[in-house]
């Protein structure tokens, strides 16, 4: 936050601020809009800081006037009530002045704003990485077009948007159910994800790092839990990550009785595999999924999709970004997206307790509407909307053994 902006932000609160200067000084503000770490966010910040400063100046002048004018002209106790102040009805010249001056200030701000609007809406740079960003209740999916054929079909992932640093990322933002909004404040402002529309947007990170954000258009129950994390890697690391993401998961033979193989069978035989896709396991099941992974049975999931789990262990969060998959220790964070590549990383960094709790009863962990509603529902007169499908992950009533086996299987999806 720039010094001037700080004045603007804190000035209205001078009174309260005095009480509370110490408060959050030590806290991080991962979503602040005054610490830009990418060109778009910086362009915005360069515009908004002077505007905030100008507003701050006006604020000080008017508030001072609101305080001083009444004090200066207050009636004294010994005033004669019948002595009446001069009856001034107005002053046209003065009033025209204070109509024109603000209009001129606004014109200056207006020009700067319009210039910035068109700066920011410029087409993506040559060589930009194309990613489709898709919002649904209540998680984000990211699909990559690496070969430039216009189809976002090379990589499908969720929650963490992994990008190369110092490269323009050309986003196409859309949604599959209701309106959401994509926002990583340190990289750019927000852009709504609207079903049926494709909105261009671009982000770029100055350097490798993790940038937080969240859905900012109210989208129902778990709107608060629909988080965003952009992970910027160096070009080399990104290339490695991208290659790894395109590999299929392994299958297990009938005779394999390892916990992971048992978990694999839980996955394929329980309801899991009707919604979640794992490349190399059930991705090609044309009875259940369309070629791009849409669940054919609408009642299973209104949006038609569940997060692709093929490379679950390369993500740092799960359940729409609500929970950490990779523990928040310095050791684990230093491993980046590769935290689960070796057994030691998995053993030390997998947030096993959270994952198990999730599998035990997902709707208890995150507000969702996983059951088809049957009572007290609109629609007896509305044939178009029946049946009302599930939104979010249901409780599958797994046994503790099954949960252990599933985790063992999921752990291998690096």
């Amino acid at each position, binding site marked *: 936050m720039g010094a001037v902006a700080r004045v603007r932000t804190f000035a209205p609160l001078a009174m309260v601020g005095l009480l509370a200067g110490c408060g959050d000084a030590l806290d991080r503000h991962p979503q602040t809009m005054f610490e830009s770490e990418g060109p778009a966010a910086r362009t915005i910040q360069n515009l908004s800081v002077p505007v905030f400063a100008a507003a701050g100046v006006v604020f000080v002048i008017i508030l001072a006037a609101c305080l001083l004018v009444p004090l200066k002209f207050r009636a004294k106790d010994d005033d004669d009530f019948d002595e009446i102040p001069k009856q001034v009805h107005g002053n046209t010249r003065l009033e025209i002045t204070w109509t024109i001056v603000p209009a001129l200030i606004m014109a200056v701000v207006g020009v700067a704003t319009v210039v910035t609007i068109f700066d920011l809406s410029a087409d993506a740079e040559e060589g930009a990485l194309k990613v489709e960003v898709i919002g649904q209740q209540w998680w984000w999916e990211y699909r990559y077009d690496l070969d430039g054929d216009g189809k976002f079909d090379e990589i499908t992932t969720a929650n963490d948007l992994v990008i190369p640093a110092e490269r323009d990322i050309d986003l196409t933002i859309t949604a599959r159910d209701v309106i959401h909004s994509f926002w990583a404040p340190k990289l750019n402002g927000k852009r709504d994800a609207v079903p049926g529309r494709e909105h261009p947007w671009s982000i770029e990170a100055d350097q490798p790092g993790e940038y937080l954000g969240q859905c900012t258009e109210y989208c129902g129950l778990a*709107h608060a839990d629909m988080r965003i994390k952009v992970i910027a890697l160096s070009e080399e690391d990104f290339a490695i990550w991208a290659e790894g993401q395109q590999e299929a998961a392994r299958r297990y033979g009938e005779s394999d009785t390892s916990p992971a193989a048992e978990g694999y069978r839980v996955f394929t035989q329980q309801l899991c595999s009707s919604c979640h896709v794992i490349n190399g396991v059930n991705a090609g099941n044309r009875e259940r999924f369309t070629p791009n992974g849409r669940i054919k049975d609408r009642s299973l999931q209104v949006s038609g999709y569940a997060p692709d789990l093929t490379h679950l262990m390369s993500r740092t969060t799960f359940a729409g970004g609500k929970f950490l998959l990779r523990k928040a220790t310095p050791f684990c964070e230093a491993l980046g997206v590769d935290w689960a590549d070796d057994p030691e990383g998995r053993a030390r960094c997998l947030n096993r307790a959270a994952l198990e709790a999730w599998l035990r009863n997902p709707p208890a962990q995150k507000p969702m509407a996983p059951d088809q509603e049957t009572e007290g529902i609109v629609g007896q007169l509305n044939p178009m909307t029946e049946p009302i499908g599930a939104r979010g992950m249901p409780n599958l009533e797994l046994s503790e053994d099954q949960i252990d086996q599933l985790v063992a299987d999921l752990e291998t999806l690096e």
Partner: protein
Amino acid sequence: MSLTPTEAGPLALPTGNGRGPARNPLGVFSRPRTTTGWRSWVTTVDHKKIGIMYGAAALVFFVIGGIEALLIRVQLATPSGQLLSADLYNQVFTMHGTTMVFLVVMPIGSALMNYLIPLQIGARDVAFPRLNAFGFWVFLAGGLMLNSSWLLGHAPDGGWFNYAPNNGVAFSPHHGIDFWNMGLIMTGLASLTGAINLIVTCLNMRAPGMTLMKMPVFTWMALVTQFLLLFAIPVLTSAQFLLMFDRLFGANFFNVEAGADPLLWEHLFWIFGHPEVYIMILPAFGVVSEIIPVFSRKPLFGYPFMVFSGIAIGFMGWGVWAHHMFASGIGPISVAAFSVSTMFIAVPTGVKVLNWLATMWGGKLRFSTPMLFAIGLVSMFTIGGLSGVTHAVSPSDTQQTDTYYIVAHFHYVLFGGALLGFLGGFYFWWPKAFGYALDDKLGKVNFWVILIGFNMTFGPMHILGLQGMPRRIYTYSDGYGFNFWNFVSTIGAFIIALAVVMFFANIVVSRRRARAAAKVMAADPWDGRSLEWMVPSPTPEHNFDEVPVITQFDDFWHRKYGEDDKGRPVRIAATADVVQTGDATDVHLPSPSYWPLVLAAGLPIVGYGLIYNLWLCLVGGLFVIAAIYGLTLEPASDDEAPHDHGGHGPAGDDTTTGAEAAPEQEAALVD
């Protein structure tokens, strides 16, 4: 109904004369005649009683909306709050916003406008008194129906803006959104009929000599507000009808899979929604434009500028709606156009602030409670206005929108602006409406407590928003730096709650004290400037004994004060000699009627029918049609009723009126 003045004066309303239509239409009711007791309230067509009922209902809803606000603040006081589930939280924040906008700020405006417009323009009632009564009852029916959703399973949870397609059955399978639809269609009817009524009143029923440019600024702002309502409400109502057909009959107006574009709803909603902002704030601007001159003892600085800036806001308010949609994906040209138009709407608003300050400049200011609230509005609204300018800078807005920075902004506008203004208005006009003043000392404490609580609640939200806390989230996590200011904000909310309790306590205490003292309230306790101070307090049922003839702006003040030979203002007449005594002879007022209430009662039956069982719609529909016939066939006035309505104060107030001898106090400010 003819509005042509008759020999009884320009304000007499046409009578039924006993010829023509039946006296007891449909043979159901005998004509109500009582002027006291509860029946006089439910059958009243008196603009003052209707105004008071609007105010009372709005205050009840204010308490409900306030409790919802406290629930929100407790939930967010600490990270991972556990008080409310996400589902309940979404209902609570939706109902808080909807209640405060449609059932609190708008009807408080209606209360003041209903009560004051006829008084300020020298009229005996509004143009269509029974329509006015219908407006109130249908507002109440809408508000009650909306809130009945709490008791019938599930309150609306789509936000007050209720975006498509989240408002569709697939994503909001409960009836909450249907209650939202039906309830607000009804309150919309109230606004629409009220708009037509008050526009006609302002244009046709002004006292002789009161040209438009001599109208008090409150009435002017009310007139602009009513024009905004007239054009804005139908947009919302249309959108709600489309949504109703979508939800109940599968009409597919907003169904994306059937090819609909969800931006249609956004546009419709905000084409209503932005004028709505001015609908809420302009009446409050009018209130302070009355209060500041009286307590500065100077005329309003730049009356024509104040009027025309209000009109300019009214016009420009239609060209800025898409600034609510800067992140929605509309193209850069639209964004640029709406950015610039939004910036320029700040200009007339700024003019108002500076003119208020100039009105105080050179005056002799008395800091009675209404004046404190008025200065509170000027300063707090300025903060909201300035943060508004930062939203007009659309690139910056793509960072701020849908964060708590916006929540801070509009609470500074609607609480720091509209609500502080309205509270000031209550303190200012309370003696006129009820015949006793609210205690000034308690009022001042009330003001400071509310000012501190307000800034403590909403000030920190600026910081939270800029630190990246989104709106409409039922919880937030530790580690985002949101903890401290959220906690401060919650403490502030309880301070506001304390201030609200103090306001109600002030009413009780002051009323009790006034009854014990049995003093007659002066007609003009503040040394006022406009016509409402010319009639006794409380206002007699017939308003004016005789209609004043107006020669200039602030006519009443100029009856008290003139100029000496050096051009200095001097008193030329004692207040007691220029105010009226409340002594009416042969005043003919419109008669009370049951039909407005009956008509309004039919509509929620249709509403519940649409939700639960279509047969009920038939019952409700017959009810409505019968009531329309009854209302139409009933003569406007009951010629068998006694004609002398003079001297009756509002029912339940047994204080003597000015007609009787008790000598009036000189203006209270003198002592």
